[in-house]
């Protein structure tokens, strides 16, 4: 039995028989219990009442009719080359891939994600300073001499809506209330004594830079909920990308 031709005929004959047998069987349209439930639920949301037996019967009949047409349309290949069908299938595949398993319980994955995106969870450099505000440069000498004679800085200068003591704020936050002009000069100051005046779009400021906190990472334990949410979102996006890349291997893409 080493003759390939003999094998060819045997296998070919079997395939032919199988095909003949299978194609004689009519295609099945099964109205499952689940399908019936779905139809009756849909009816209920649309009409506000449960479907009666006869209504349900006609819903199911209608569904069967559509399903027969649908299967026949597929058999005839009507789905091919139809832009609506194409788009819907693509969307559907997308939704499918997005439904990633929830792995947030797995501490390791979350931790890994956190470490990989540590820059997202890193606090910027933050500044703490106090400022005495005044409107006219001519007020400077008076404020200076009062400071030197021991008057509390909080009693000097003019009331303004600007915060007098800023605690641990980033460049962006300080700029949002004091403006760029002010922040640019703030960064050149050394910590310690009252310096200035610094000019801003509000007026003049004597500034005492008290503390500069370096950029530092927020420990995972403090922001775990946020990291888990970010992680899940990234998994959804990554799944779609990875799936696409994997599929690409199966296709030769030719740009003409």
């Amino acid at each position, binding site marked *: 039995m080493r003759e390939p031709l003999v094998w060819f005929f045997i296998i070919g004959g079997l395939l032919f028989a199988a095909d003949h047998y299978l194609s004689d069987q009519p295609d099945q349209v099964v109205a499952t219990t689940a399908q019936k439930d779905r139809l009756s639920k849909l009816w209920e*949301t649309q009409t506000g009442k449960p479907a009666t037996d006869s209504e349900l019967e006609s819903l199911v009949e209608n569904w069967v009719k559509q399903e027969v047409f649908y299967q026949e349309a597929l058999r005839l290949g009507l789905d091919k080359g139809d832009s609506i069908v194409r788009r819907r299938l693509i969307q559907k595949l997308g939704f499918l891939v997005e439904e990633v398993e929830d792995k947030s319980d797995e501490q390791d994955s979350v931790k*890994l994600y956190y470490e990989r995106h540590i820059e997202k969870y*890193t606090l910027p450099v933050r500044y703490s300073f106090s400022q005495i505000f005044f409107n006219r440069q001519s007020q400077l000498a008076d404020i200076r001499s009062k400071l030197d004679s021991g008057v509390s800085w909080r009693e000097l200068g003019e009331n303004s809506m600007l915060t007098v003591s800023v605690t641990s704020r980033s460049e*962006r936050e300080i700029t949002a209330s004091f403006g760029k002009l002010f922040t640019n000069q703030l960064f050149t100051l050394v910590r310690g004594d009252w310096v200035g005046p610094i000019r801003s779009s*509000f007026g003049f400021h004597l500034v005492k830079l008290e503390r500069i*906190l370096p*950029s*530092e990472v927020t420990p995972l334990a403090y922001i775990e909920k946020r990291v888990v949410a970010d992680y899940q979102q990234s998994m959804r996006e990554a799944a779609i990308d990875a799936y696409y890349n994997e599929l690409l291997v199966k296709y030769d893409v030719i740009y003409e």
Partner: protein
Amino acid sequence: MSIDRSLLPVSLFFFLILSLGGCGDANKEHEEKSSSSETEASTILPVTSDLNSNRNAYFGDLHVHTMYSFDAFIFGTTASPDDAYEFARGKALRHPGGFDMQLKVPLDFYGVSDHGFYLGALRAMADPSTNLSKHEVAKGMDELGDSVSRRKQFGKILQFLQSDRSDEILDAEVFKNAWDDIIAAANRHYDPGKFTTFIAYEYTASGPEFENLHRNVIFKGDSAPNLPFTRIDSTNPEDLWEWMDEKRRNGYESLAIPHNSNGSNGEMFKLLDFSGNPLSSNYADLRMRNEPLVEISQVKGTSDTHPALSPNDEWADFEIMPTRVASRLLSDINGSYVREALMNGIELQQKKGFNPYKFGVIGSSDTHNATYAGDEDNYWSKVGLNDDEPVERGSVPLPEPREDGGLYADTYYSTWSAAGLAGVWAEENTRDAIYEAFRRKETFGTSGTRIKVRFFAGHDLPELDDVALLTKAYERGIPMGGDLIAVLDAEPEFLVWAARDVNGAPLQRLQVIKATVRDGKSVETVFDVACADGGEVDSQTHRCPDNGASVNLDDCTISADLGAAELKTIWQDPDYDASERAFYYVRVLENPTCRWSTWDAIRSGVPPREDLHATIQERAWSSPIWISPAEPASLKSRE
């Protein structure tokens, strides 16, 4: 299907391998960073707080639509509530028109407030895995093209929604899923001390001819009723308030904020209830219990007042939208503006002893792009692909004139504004503190600028240069939103104080708007109370001298060195009468700047459109302070 799924674990595995590859380096880099920095103690604990008993100003937007709003989705918005909150914190978000939107300065609080009715429905129609997508009216939803075809599709759906078959697209599951996602997103992005979110939605009721009765419902807590109360439940706002009362009894504290009274055709603040009966003290209680605030300014115009209502207010003609909402029908002026409603309120109080219109003010955008509205010089308007191009919003001529000869698109978008922010004075940036400020009406609204405005009234206010000015003002006076009872032998003082937006124009003048009931009728007066550039208020006209600030319409540059960074004064009313019922609120005006339509025109190299204001004066409005007479006015009139 099963084959597709089986690929997933493989791709995820690859993803994880790739992730592993990178993380070692990141760690190392981080170690190097921390070792080289100064040896300060960690500040991560305790969290820095702005906690301030004299309260800080926080800015936010409580009127934000995302992909879950039926109209926003069809106009091209696919941004989720998550995207909206990330935008508010400073992240760039891509407009469906293909450009990035980003805030210059992040906001302090934000509330996604999608339309409650048909919440999520249109988006579900475009998702082929849903039942809704199979409905006949969903046909075409997966192939939304340009703005013209989108509007056509929208028209078709609106027609269906108005038919007696509209129930067919009420899908309880879609509704619930969208609402749950909105709640979850708000809770996920709430970062106490830094960024506050609110669970919210819009109750979108209208009268039969586009009389706008919309309000946003804002929840205080981290949970909300199972489903929102929508116009499908009732188009009568009184039913909404009853529902809010009932939910409040079950632990869901909320308040409603009406908006676009300007487009209500007189319905928002009319002097009859929904059924046409005269207003009653029950009505006033019900309304005020649920609606302490009103939105005074947003993209669809400003509702402070109208030139026809306030002929002696030279600044009344500001961002007036003459039409009803979503319509070209003109909106009746009476009953549509905030100042008139406040005035009717004190009249009613005087005559009948109740006031249904004793509200504070905020601004908000009503964006349908999830992303505020942008600034005058960086404006993206609010309805997706409909109005993201200057030509579409009528600021730049059409390539070809219209058939009727018009040079500009025939649209009401040209009357819209780059506007609407809410300001609050709160101890810290948390839900509790900000919500309590809403309830106290210690709020202000702006036309988009971040002017801060303080307003106190009292009989013994401290001097302006008092070191403990604010502490004493809170101790001895009442802040905006509050009540002061007049005393016979002392005139009230007002502390009026505003600071500029560091990214906006300097301030030009500080004003107090007063209304009082005289012989049963309320009358208004606008007082300038502080002037920039050393100007003095004229005691006869109550006006500042013109500070001469101008705008160069070739490039929108403004006068350098004119205007003030801050304006403040202790003011007393020269016409004060202790026997009169009155309210007072502050309006702050910036120096003039280019309107968005002028920026559009300049950038397109065409002259600004002649029938639009080329410049505007950005502004802020405080909530009012009400003063009740020292003795019942009825007694006095008998004397």
